[in-house]
Every structure is written in C-alpha cells, then in structure tokens.
C-alpha cells in the first residue's frame, strides 16, 4: 500500500515537472525613437505548450518624452488584438510633456492563444474643438507568438 502511495506521489511530481518544464516566460517588444519621443510596443506572458496558450498575458504601448516637446503634450495611438478581440485604433493624450516623463496604456486579458500590441507616438494640441497632432516615431508592434 505504502509503495502505491509513493508511486502515486512520484507520478504526480513527474507530471508537475513535465508541465513546468513546458512553461516559458515570454516577452517581445519593439522600440522606435523619434526626434522628441520614444515608442514602445510590449507583450508578455507565460507560454504553455502544450496546449499552446499564453497565461497571464499582458500588452502595452508606451510613449516617453525624450526631449522638450515643441507642443503641448504627447499623443499615443494604440491597438491591441488577442484571440477574438481587437480594440481598433485608439488615441491617448496623457498629461505628459516633460523630458523623462512617460505614459502607457495596457491590457491584461488573462489566458490567450496570441496577443498583439501596435502603437505610435507623436505630439499635439487642441485648437478650438479640433485636436492637432503629428507623428514623431514610426509604428511599433510586438506579438506572441512572434511574427
């Protein structure tokens, strides 16, 4: 009886080890420098294979002010995609304009089969009711699994 119990625990331990061995912490990022700003697309999570899923998935688009902006503030365009979801193109205008300051927008969708983060950074201001902006960086994108 004792032998059977030990065999059971040994099998359990082996299964845990196997499943742990197939889990990998993964991340991917893309960075771009503009004249005044920096853009970063970032994704991460724990990749389990099998079954081929990313647990504790996370993605962000981050904008950083490198040098004093020639305008009122930073603007970040972001878009996130995972499994059946797509945020569409969205804009974020944080209260950020000093060198070294940054802002990011993120999602934490839990367990997914893939995740993609796309963004771009520029600067702008309001005039009347219209938002004026201009891009400073190229578009950045990061994904898991990798492209």
């Amino acid at each position, binding site marked *: 009886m004792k032998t059977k119990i030990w065999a059971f625990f040994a099998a359990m331990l082996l299964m845990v080890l196997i499943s742990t061995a197939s889990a990998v912490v993964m991340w991917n990022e893309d960075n771009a420098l503009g004249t005044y700003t920096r853009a970063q697309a970032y994704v991460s999570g724990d990749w389990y294979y099998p079954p081929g899923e990313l647990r504790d998935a996370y993605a962000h688009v981050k904008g950083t002010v490198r040098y004093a902006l020639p305008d009122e503030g930073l603007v970040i365009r972001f*878009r996130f995609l995972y499994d*059946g979801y797509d945020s*569409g*193109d969205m*804009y974020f205008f944080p209260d950020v304009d000093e060198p070294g300051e940054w802002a990011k*927008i993120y999602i934490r969708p839990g367990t997914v089969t*893939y995740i993609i983060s*796309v963004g771009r950074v520029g600067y702008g201001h309001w005039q009347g009711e219209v938002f*004026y902006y201009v891009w400073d960086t190229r578009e950045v994108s990061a994904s898991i699994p990798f492209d």
Partner: protein
Amino acid sequence: MSKATHLPTSLFLSLVVLTALVAHGRSQAGGWFYWMEPGTYATLAMSAVKLPDIPGWSGSNLGRYYSGLRFPNETQIGFRNITLTWKVLEVYEDEALVNYTIELFDAYYAERYMGTLKYVSSIGNMELLSLRVLVKMDTLNVYSENGTYIGRWPFWVHGHEVGSRIVMVHDVLTSDPKAMYLNGTIVITHLDAKVGLSDSGTVAQSFGRDPESEGINTTFGFFSASRLLGCTPVLVPMDSAYISAGPDFPALYDKVSLTMVAYSSDYIDDVVRFMVGDIYIGIYLEKPLVIVDSNIDFSPEKEPDEPLNSDNAEPLLIPSAIAATVVVVSIGVSVAVYAWKKKRG
C-alpha cells in the same frame, strides 16, 4: 398653334430655363458642390502603396497583411481589393439621389488565425452592397428611397464644418477605450465615430511643415496638404488624461470639391451599417483607400464661398427666379402682341 397651347408651352419652357439656371448656378466652380449633376461619380480603392503621413492623419497601413470583414456570428470574409463607388443619379432642389456600391474582389471565406485570416473557400468577386440613397445637401443626412433615416453621408463634407466635431458614423461595434484605460480590459460595445474636421494646411503649418510639399499622390494628381481637410480623433477626459471618444474615421477630403479622396485604417459608415449590419470595428483594409476614378473636375482651385443650406439658398435661387420670371413675361408679352397683331389683321 392655338392661343390655348401657348400658355402651357410657355410654362414648360420657363421651367426648363429655370432648371437650367439652377443647375448652372450650382455647377459654377467655386460654388457649393459645383460638380453636382446626374452622372457624377467617384471610386475609391486600396492604394498599391502606403501613403505618406500628413499632420493630423494616420496615413499608415497598420502593419496588417490582410483585408476583410468580420460579422458578430464569426463569419469572416477576406478579399484582395475593394472599391467604394458613389454616383449621382438625380439632383433635386435640396437633395440628391445617389447610388452607392461596394465591391470586393477575390473575396473568400476565412477563419481567424493568430491575428490574421486563413483561407477557407473562394467566393470570387462580390457586391457587398448596392443601394440608392437620398442625400440631403444641407445636412448630409442620408435616407433610403422610402424615407428611412440611415445616418450621415460620409463621402462629402461641408466647408462650414471645419473646426467642429461631427458624428461621422453612428453606433459602430467597437471596444470601449475607457474600459481599457481603467481596467486593462477590452469591452465590446457600440460607440459613435466622432471626428474633428481640420484644415490640413493649417495643421501642417502649425507644426512648421510646408503644406504645399506634403500631400498624397492620386490618379488625379497631387493633393497637397493645403488643399485637404482631414478628420482628427475626438478625445474625452479621463482623470488628468484624454482618451478616444470612439472609433477613428481617418478620412481626407478635397477642400475644393469637398469629396473624400483618401481614407486610412478600417472603414465603416452608416450605409454599410444599415445594409450589412454590425461588423466588428469596420472593414479591415491592408492599405489606405484613395480615389482612383471620377468624372469630377478637380482643376478648379477656388474653395466654395458659402454652404448651401436653407438659410442661404436664396442667393442662388433669387437670380434664377428673376430670370425665369423675365422669360415667362417675355413669352407672355410676345403671345399677346402676336394675338393683337393677328386680330388687327
């Protein structure tokens, strides 16, 4: 010809003259929608190349490698190219009957696969929609032929809308940016696509750029930023920051003809919503849309002076009405003189 037939003939002639005068007044370069006449059309299709950045306009292909649309029931249709065509069929006093067609080329049923589309089976070329709609020229509200309100006509703008916010598309099935900002989650909901309409030349200048050298190339030549009106995103306050009020509608309009000449990112409008139903985000486009065919004369450079709406339609109509009255009276006098002469032998 008997005298009895003179009056209807005169009235008919005066009606013809009045119509011609109104059409002439409307078609003057520098006039509002100077191109507006039956038969005028424009077609937009996907650009073969990525378009350059213009301040206030994305001009990006978003790094996407497919085009398609996705219905809430998960039906996915991919395609290689797309055309959006509008054609004026009839012009009435304050509205136009327009045929709007969207065609998909090399369409195929697809499955979603890792953020892209996987081919399942061929459809071939297909007409996504073809509909005759009535567009009110003063409000740009669009109605079906039986009078059902559809929403906003997206292919034309009014110059007096520059500097203001416009609901360009209603109730787009999209994600809520506030939920993303607050919780890091995507919540699917319906939101209006609001835009701020801006003068791209002014925007370029405000960033120290040359509005004459920046712009887009089309089959109709180079549209510089100084000749373009661009849609910019509308943002709403969230804590100390601002975030998108809803989905983007990144269109560029020619400042003279006031018609759409380019569009970047996913495409959706109220007629698509009305005919096709909910599609998620919009029609995904691998490359931006750009005008490829039209019989509009883009050579005029004079911008429209005043909008055509109920408040200032009189300047156009009064001279026409006076002219028509003169014609009617002239014909009447001629008839009277003829009858008087004939009576006197």
